[in-house]
C-alpha cells in the first residue's frame, strides 16, 4: 500500500501516527488483498475521517468492486456508535465531491468543505452494511 503500488496516500505515515486509527477492508476468504483503507481520529465527541481510499484496482470504470468507500464510511459510523458518539462522523471534502457525498452518503454540508454524518444517516449506513 505504497504510492509506488498505485495508492494515492502515504499509509505507512498514517500507521506510524499514534493519534490515528487505520483500518483495511478485505473480502471473506481473501484477507491479504486490501480493497480499501480508512484512517480516522477519535475526537472528544465524534469521529473524524482523515483519509479514505479504494485500492487502485477498485478505481475508475474497470474497478473490481463497487461500494468500497460506502463500506468504509459505514464502518467509521459503527465505531462512532461504539464510542458513544451516536454515529457522528465528520470529514472535509473536495469542493467537486461535496454534492456526491450529500447524494450518495447523505452527508450534511456544514460549510467550508466540512461534512457531517448525522446519527439517522449513520444508523442507516450501519444497518446497510453490518446488519446480519
Amino acid at each position, binding site marked *: 500500500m505504497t504510492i509506488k503500488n498505485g495508492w494515492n496516500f502515504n499509509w505507512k505515515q498514517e500507521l506510524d501516527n499514534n493519534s490515528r486509527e487505520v483500518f483495511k477492508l478485505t473480502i471473506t476468504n481473501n484477507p491479504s488483498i486490501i480493497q480499501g483503507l480508512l484512517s480516522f481520529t477519535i475526537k472528544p465527541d465524534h469521529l473524524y475521517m482523515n*483519509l479514505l481510499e479504494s485500492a487502485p484496482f477498485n478505481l475508475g470504470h474497470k474497478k473490481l468492486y463497487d461500494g468500497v468507500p460506502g463500506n468504509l464510511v459505514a464502518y467509521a459510523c459503527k465505531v462512532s456508535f461504539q464510542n458513544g458518539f451516536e454515529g457522528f462522523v465528520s470529514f472535509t471534502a473536495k469542493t467537486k*465531491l461535496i454534492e*456526491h457525498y450529500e447524494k450518495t452518503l447523505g452527508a450534511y454540508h456544514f460549510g467550508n468543505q466540512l461534512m457531517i454524518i448525522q446519527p439517522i444517516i449513520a444508523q442507516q449506513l450501519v444497518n446497510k452494511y453490518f446488519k446480519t
Partner: protein
Amino acid sequence: MGHIKEPDGVDLVIKSRPLTKEEEIAISNYIRAYKAKHSIKKSQSKRATSKTRKVADPLMKK
C-alpha cells in the same frame, strides 16, 4: 438492500485537512445542539404515547 455505488466516473476519496480550533468548536456546538433538539423531540413523543394509553385503557374495560 443494495450497497452504495459510486456515481459514474467519480471515485470517492477522502483527504481531510487538519481541523482548525474554530472548526472543532463549531462541530462540537453543532453536535450539542443536534442532541439537545432531538432529545426534546424524543421526550415529547414519549409523553404523547403515554397519554394515548391512558385514554385507551378505560375504553378497553367497557
